[in-house]
């Protein structure tokens, strides 16, 4: 019983809360990732998996055992694991002669595989080799993508969206200005994707905004794109659909013009124009005993003014 159906009810409040947490929600919380190994893994791959796990620490599960599956051929076992742990992101590492040091980044929609991208590790420098101090666990990293390929190539576009999904932290309202320490920088260059992780130091500059100095802290990996299994446009659009309730309510009757002036419409009841209070022009008032000619002479004046 994974769903909260009324027929079998949960026995404790705790289990009820657990099941409610797993139901689809209006606004979703952070996606968690499951990190697993394939049939055969090399030292590089295991280290890389461990480093990514440390980057995504509270919201990731690292499996110790090897899973002999091939995600590109049969994704049922991945889907099963995702259902069990309620993780919608996965990272599958493997190593064989044909595809050495392979990492498969992927995400799920409704516990079915949405996108999968296979990246090969060409050069890898582990976290341990860097002497710099690391940021505390759970800091929201700043993500920077560089290279026009990320907007030109459709596969790289999806990869960019996948990496954002993977590495962005929880959605927050505000961030402590002094706590912006971690930067993940992805560069697309010559068909390779370079991932670097820096710790940023905010130095004093003349004005309020500080000057940034970077120090390489985290793992540095050079990826090469191998196979991809991307969702069709239709499925992707379906997955992007947000429920109506989340759309901000539009205030009616308010419009803005080009200059930014706010306009609204005021609805009045029917007015009796004969009893309208207008400005009194004393000079134009009719005096007793005046001739018609004078009136005529004044009449055009009135017309002009109005």
């Amino acid at each position, binding site marked *: 019983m994974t769903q909260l159906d009324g*027929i079998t009810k949960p026995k404790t409040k705790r289990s009820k809360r657990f099941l409610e947490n797993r139901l689809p929600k209006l606004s979703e919380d952070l996606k968690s990732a499951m990190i697993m190994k394939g049939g055969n893994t090399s030292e590089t791959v295991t280290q890389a998996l461990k480093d990514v796990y440390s980057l995504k620490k509270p919201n990731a599960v690292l499996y110790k055992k090897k899973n002999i599956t091939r995600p590109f051929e049969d994704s049922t076992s991945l889907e099963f694991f995702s259902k069990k742990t309620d993780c919608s992101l996965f990272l599958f590492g493997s190593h064989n002669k044909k595809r050495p040091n392979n990492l498969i980044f992927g995400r799920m929609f409704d516990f079915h595989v949405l996108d999968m991208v296979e990246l090969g590790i060409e050069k890898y420098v582990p976290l341990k080799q860097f002497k710099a101090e690391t940021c505390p666990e759970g800091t929201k990293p*700043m993500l920077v993508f560089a290279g026009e390929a*990320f907007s030109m190539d459709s596969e790289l576009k999806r990869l960019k969206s996948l990496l954002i999904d993977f590495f962005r932290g929880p959605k927050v309202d505000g961030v402590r200005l002094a706590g912006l320490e971690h930067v993940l920088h992805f560069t697309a260059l010559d068909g390779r994707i*370079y991932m670097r992780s820096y710790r940023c130091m905010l130095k004093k500059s003349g004005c309020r905004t500080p000057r940034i100095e970077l120090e390489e802290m985290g793992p540095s990996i050079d990826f090469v794109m191998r196979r991809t299994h991307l969702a069709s446009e239709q499925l992707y659009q379906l997955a992007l659909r947000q429920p109506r309730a989340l759309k901000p309510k539009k205030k009616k009757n308010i419009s803005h013009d080009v200059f930014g002036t706010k306009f609204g419409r005021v609805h009045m009841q029917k007015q009796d124009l004969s009893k309208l209070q207008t400005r009194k022009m004393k000079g134009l008032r009719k005096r007793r005993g005046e001739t018609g000619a004078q009136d005529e002479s004044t009449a055009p004046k009135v017309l002009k003014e109005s």
Partner: protein
Amino acid sequence: MAASSVEELLAKAEQDEAEKLKSITVKKDLDLEFDLGNLLAYDPNRVELRQQNREEFLKALARDNTQLLINEIWKIPTERVEEAIVAKLPDPTTPLPREKPPPKPKPPTKWEQFAKLKGIQKKKKTNLVWDENAKEWRRRWGYKRANDNTKDWLIEVPDTADPNEDQFAKRVKAKKERVAKNELNRLKNIARAQKIKIPAAGLTPKAQQSKDELALAVSVAKTSTASVGRFQDRLPKEKASKKKGEKRKFEPVIGDFSNEKQKQLDLLQIMDSKKPKLDVTKAVNKQMREEDREAAAAKYKRGAGKKGRRGGMPGKGRGPGGKGGKGGKGKGGKAAAGGGGGGKRKGKPGKK
């Protein structure tokens, strides 16, 4: 002179400002795209590796991009939260796919529909109720509740009730029935929400079923065959059921005048024509079928009765006998029907 000194001052001020900003300005061909809700920056400029060392180049690029991102973040309004300056981030703008499809709204239950119809609002109830007997505030339901009638050690027997009846057991039984009814309604609501079909009133097993319910159950069982009950045998004294599910459509009393006129004229025409109302072929076939069935039933009974005594080959004996019987009967039947049809007919030549 004054003008030139003013100019000088202005130029100096500008220079100072430029120097201050020098440390944080970065020159880029194309502006970066920012998504501050995700702390994301995208640099669409072309990346070209020059003679520099790749690591240095990447680091410099990263520094520049991060500087621009930090500049953007520092522009948004901040507030002070417990001795830390916090920048209020806007909502993220990059569209990212969801984890699960958005939740579907549940259909209202029977009570909810009724309440909406009548305009009944939910009244919020207090947690604690005053218990007169215990003279304290107790919870409304649950453990140690107020006005708990299960704890009564005395129940007055009402005048209308049987003096030998156990009132305590009666109370317990009533409670169980209420609970069961509630549970049934809850499950019905769930079935309605999930659109699961449930058997109708008479078909679920009950302790005491009325005659009508049994008849309904029998008729449903009979029609749930592949041929919708056409070839189901009936018990000796069982009445054939009326046609269920067939709806008769009646024309409105004052409707299509031309249609009504046409119908009346057609009727007159049929009455006027000298064609027989009886469809001969159909009548003949029906009679034949009826007779065949009776003959087969009779043979089977005879064969079954004799089987017990002879134990021989009743099938083979029956076969040619049956065939002969059938053929003879058929011819006879046809002749009789032909004769009957001819007798009824008036002007048309008879079929032989």
